[in-house]
């Protein structure tokens, strides 16, 4: 569906959801380049209500039916998570509506609030510079750690987040994660990948025990955070959250995967500062051995992302060239994982 047709359909849909308003108009309508699982549209809406003008920003995420995570990603689950988080101090956008009817836009969609701020791309030269300058000022690194600690300190049962599934004791969390990604790999590829097979077998044989369960974001890094006035204004990308080992998020922050060419974790925070501040705010001691294990799991996960992505392109289900490009990214991440486990 063309962007202009989408815009028209969204305006009609909003009019249905806001029946008392007049002169509804959309402005600054843009499809963002970010997001691999969903099409994302940002826009402002203005209308007249009770004789006065109202203006509000929205973000719409639509399931294109060919998302990178395939059936692992659910907009309905995202909506439930965002609704559950509204009663907590977690920095997340408010969710307004979830629409399962694919007839309206060609796929289910979620409408949430547009948060003021920017999401500098940490892999771009300009984005790296933004984060490096913010790191030097010092406010954003502290906010980065605080936002993560807030998630890990949440009473997830009280917030009603146990619908996500609660792992059993011991190694169950790690094994569940491995099984999830292995399933996606199998669904995405007609050909087994022998290097990935070795990495998966090693992960299964070395799964650690979770010392505590927490609400885990699953992809906490710059690029998934809206930054406003040097602070984290909102955490985005609510697709991979789980109840699990908080070291899973910590490992992602510590990972080399998210700090290409800089000593700063996630391009923005000094390692020593992150470790000390995270431990102070959560009263958890970081287990670096377990984090190294989860780092390998993330490398495996990234490899599976690329297999899924290139599979969608190869199957003719997506024309997004970013997905085609991942075919060539796969060996590099398999190489990182192979070196991490000794070959």
């Amino acid at each position, binding site marked *: 569906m063309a962007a202009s047709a989408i815009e028209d359909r969204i305006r009609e849909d909003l009019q249905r959801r806001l029946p008392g308003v007049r002169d509804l108009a959309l402005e600054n309508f843009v*499809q963002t*380049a970010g997001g691999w699982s969903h099409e994302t549209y940002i826009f402002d809406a203005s209308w007249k209500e009770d004789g006065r003008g109202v203006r509000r920003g929205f973000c719409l995420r639509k399931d294109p039916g060919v998302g990178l995570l395939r059936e692992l990603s659910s907009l309905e689950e995202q909506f439930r998570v965002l609704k559950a988080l509204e009663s907590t101090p977690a920095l997340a956008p408010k969710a307004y509506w979830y629409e399962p009817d694919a007839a309206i836009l060609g796929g289910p969609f979620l409408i949430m609030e547009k948060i003021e701020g920017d999401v500098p791309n940490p892999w771009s030269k300009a984005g790296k510079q933004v984060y490096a300058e913010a790191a030097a000022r010092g406010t954003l690194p502290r906010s980065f750690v605080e936002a993560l600690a807030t998630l890990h300190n949440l009473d997830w049962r009280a917030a009603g987040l146990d619908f996500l599934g609660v792992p059993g004791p011991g190694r169950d969390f790690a094994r569940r994660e491995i099984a999830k990604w292995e399933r996606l790999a199998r669904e995405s590829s007609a050909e087994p990948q*022998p290097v990935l097979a*070795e990495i998966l077998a090693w992960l299964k044989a070395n799964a650690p025990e979770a010392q505590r369960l927490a609400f885990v974001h699953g992809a906490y890094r710059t690029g998934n955070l809206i930054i406003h006035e040097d602070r984290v204004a909102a955490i985005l990308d609510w697709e991979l959250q789980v109840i699990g080992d908080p070291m899973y998020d910590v490992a992602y922050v510590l990972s080399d995967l998210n700090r290409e060419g800089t000593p700063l974790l996630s391009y923005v925070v000094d390692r020593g500062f992150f470790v000390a501040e995270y431990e102070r705010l959560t009263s958890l001691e970081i287990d670096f051995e377990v984090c190294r294990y989860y780092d390998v799991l993330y490398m495996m996960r990234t490899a599976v992302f690329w297999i899924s992505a290139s599979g969608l392109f190869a199957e003719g289900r997506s024309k997004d060239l970013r997905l085609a490009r991942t075919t060539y990214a796969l*060996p590099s991440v398999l190489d990182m994982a*192979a070196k991490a486990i000794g070959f």
Partner: protein
Amino acid sequence: MRENVIGLRFRVIPARRMLEEVIASLRGVIAPAISAPYPKTQAYMAAVILETLARAIEERSDVAEAKRRSIERLFAELGALGVGAMTEARGSVADDERLAKLVESLYADRERLGEARFAAANRRVRQTLRDLLDADLKIAASKE
């Protein structure tokens, strides 16, 4: 030089050179002129893909042959390590599938094999996996 149907003579541009020209145009002309973020990203991605394809044009046949030989050597040597029974799936089974099954079988039978034999076989398998990765990296290594 070749002659086209209306008799004009022109120089055939090698595929790699042609790709490099297209890449330069995408990176230097087309992408910078696009303001909308999604199409702009698509233009840059097209350039990155074409860069990799340009390398693949020259190297793909060598890589495929090297990988096949590496897998053959592995299966020939594993018998000597006492894990020959796991290497029986041959015939129509593709090399990658055969190797992935071998990896899974080794871990599944680890207890029965004993730690020393498992470690020796796993080390040898990993050596081949490293060869395969290095071959893939030869093509995939990016200039980004």
